[in-house]
């Protein structure tokens, strides 16, 4: 983990074990995942055992212990999105990218995440792509979105069958 960003994350939090989740949140948002090295450093800076850090990092959904793909497709499957067909959206993503929720594609370009609620329930189904939200999502719109993201990153798309 780069020292500079880590120092700013730890600023004002050193030796305060109750700040663990806040620290992990910042590491997750800056680095995309919580590495073993990061856990070791946090352990010595906060004075919390490595085992406890692993326990907390693996308990909460906000934290990922493996790196995510370049594009993170987050599909809301909260109740309101579920009754409006979030399963079809999930099926589209899984079928098109050939990975399951939580997995990253072999080329490192895509990760599918499934979340319980993003709080924009009135506009479901909701999908976010790298933090940018899309409302009233349909399988077709998702297919085109993934295709355009893929095109932006590569010459031609094996995920596109047109």
């Amino acid at each position, binding site marked *: 983990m780069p020292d500079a960003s880590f120092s700013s994350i730890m600023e004002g939090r050193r030796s305060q074990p109750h700040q663990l989740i806040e620290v992990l949140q910042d590491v997750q948002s800056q680095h995309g995942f919580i590495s073993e090295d990061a856990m070791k450093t946090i352990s010595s800076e906060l004075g919390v055992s490595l085992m406890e850090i692993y326990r907390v990092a693996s308990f909460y959904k*906000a934290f990922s212990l493996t790196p995510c793909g370049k594009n993170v497709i987050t599909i809301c499957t909260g109740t309101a999105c579920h009754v409006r067909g979030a399963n079809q959206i999930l099926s589209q993503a899984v079928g098109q990218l050939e990975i399951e929720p939580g997995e990253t594609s072999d080329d490192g370009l895509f990760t599918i995440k499934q979340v319980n609620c993003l709080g924009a329930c*009135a506009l479901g189904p909701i999908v976010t792509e790298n933090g940018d939200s899309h409302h009233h999502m349909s399988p077709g719109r998702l297919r085109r979105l993934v295709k355009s993201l893929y095109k932006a990153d590569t010459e031609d798309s094996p995920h596109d069958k047109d």
Partner: protein
Amino acid sequence: MTRINSTVDLEAMRRGFAKDRKEYQATIALCGGTGCKVSRAQPVIDALKEELITHGLDKRVCLRVTGCHGFCEQGPLMIIEPGNIFYCHVSADDAPDIINKTIREGEVIERLLYTDPLSAKRIRTVSEIPFYREQNRSLLSQNPLVDPCSIEDYIAIGGYRALTKTLSEISPESVVREIMDSGLRGRGGGGFPTGRKWAQCREAPGDEKYVICNADEGDPGAYMDRCVLEGNPHLVLEGMLIGAWAIGATQGYVYVRNEYPLAVEHVRVAVKQARKLGLLGNNILGSGFSFDVEIARGGGAFVCGESTALMASLEGKVGEPRAKDVHTVVDGLWHKPTTLNNVETWANVPFIIQKGAAWFSSMGSKGSKGTKILALTGHIKNTGLVEVEMGTPIEKVVFDIGGGAANGKPIKAIQTGGPSGGCLPADKFYLPVDFDTLTEAGSMVGSGGMVVMDESTCMVDVAKYFLTFLQDESCGKCAPCRLGIDRMLEIITDITNGDGDPKQLGLLEDLGYTMSETALCGLGKTAANPVLSTLRYFREEYETHIDEKRCPAGVCQALITFTIDPETCNGCGACKRECPHNAVVGKKKAVHSIDLDLCQKCGICRSECKFDAVNVN
């Protein structure tokens, strides 16, 4: 801005802010809440700003980007004053017309007005729109009046007046008495009397006490706390300040979901602003009372909505609940007396102090006073945030405010209270939204999520959905919840796969009642509610799945097959193009068919077909 040291200072400041606001020729209150942001409100904000500068109106017209206005389905939306004009589905291209016609000429732009789906008439003002007209927006009415990042706005409309009244005129005991008399009950789901909680915490021994605002809102399908915190954070802080004064706390925490970035940002800004003015910190308004607030972001665990689990999480630990032999009002955060209330509960407090317990208790039903914010979603025309007096019948919410079914299919049920609540059938829609009535009916008000379901929803699938959610979210600490949910999900999966047995229905009920009596925390105790309520009201759907191996709504994948009707199919190829599993075969302009070996039964082909040629059997 300098620190305010007394009530007189605050009032002087308020007069100044209010005068500034009056000098504007017009105000555009544009919703910048999460819903409208998702509907692309940002380009509208940018375009309006540019347009105002171009016309030299940026100092004369107030462009206020506010929190949620509630009518999310119509976003991005705005209210223009004077005139109370309501514009919906606004885009950046509309900005020149809005400034040129409405702001400069006072002309109303017909195409941006809301069209009532029943009368097909365009409606001009907010107060005439049925969605708003039928509500009692006691809490939410402030949202369009304040920019959440402006403490000036909040002070200008009378903000922090309840705090000054409290600190100068009311003793802590009297504050507790006032909250008790108001009949306010916790809005987070439990419905525990707030005043009683405060009294117990106040009486608990110890010099160090805490107040916590629970903004974790883990219920999928509920987002009222997000809107209140995101749209009016100072209201929540003011409530916490009053509560802290009443119970004798000097430190508070806001535990907010990290999935709500806007709420996190706005409450952080609000805390900074309040500290700068001396409304948080030492010796607030010269009263000798000191209190500060820290923000903690949740890690995304549903169980942290439970008070003891939330407190463990605030301590930096795994969010596991503990047995409440001793309540958190005595032994809470770091083993100190702690009062935890939900966002909406805190937001009610300043109003009760300002307007009095009698005003609050004049609204609502016998055991449930005041108003409740509901998140109305699902298969309904007007989705959004709705605030009604408690005791309002569900049918008024669904039909008068919600506008009824969205897709013309009859409404079958309403799911209330999230994963801890239950499903009520349409013939129970006469029931009032009231803590005790809905609990007796096998559901609950909960935090106020209301998901409307039409005939395309399978109730066994809904029960399975919630069990899957709860299995994932159970912390696993106690056996009844960990194992009970697993076994129930196994049984329901059997039923939805067509392997069910009639005896299993009784077993599901036994498991459910055992869990509700023996689980450690609220999550486990209520986890069986979605199953028990659907068994109570929709038993015949379970029986059809078991006896006839059929899913009447055509949802449960193992019991259905998709086929293309050769008579109707015109070979347009939409289904083939959209199928993510390459299961549709056929040449262009020729009849298509589905390869059942490849078909994953997701139903995408059916929703994409514009000619109703895909049948579900």
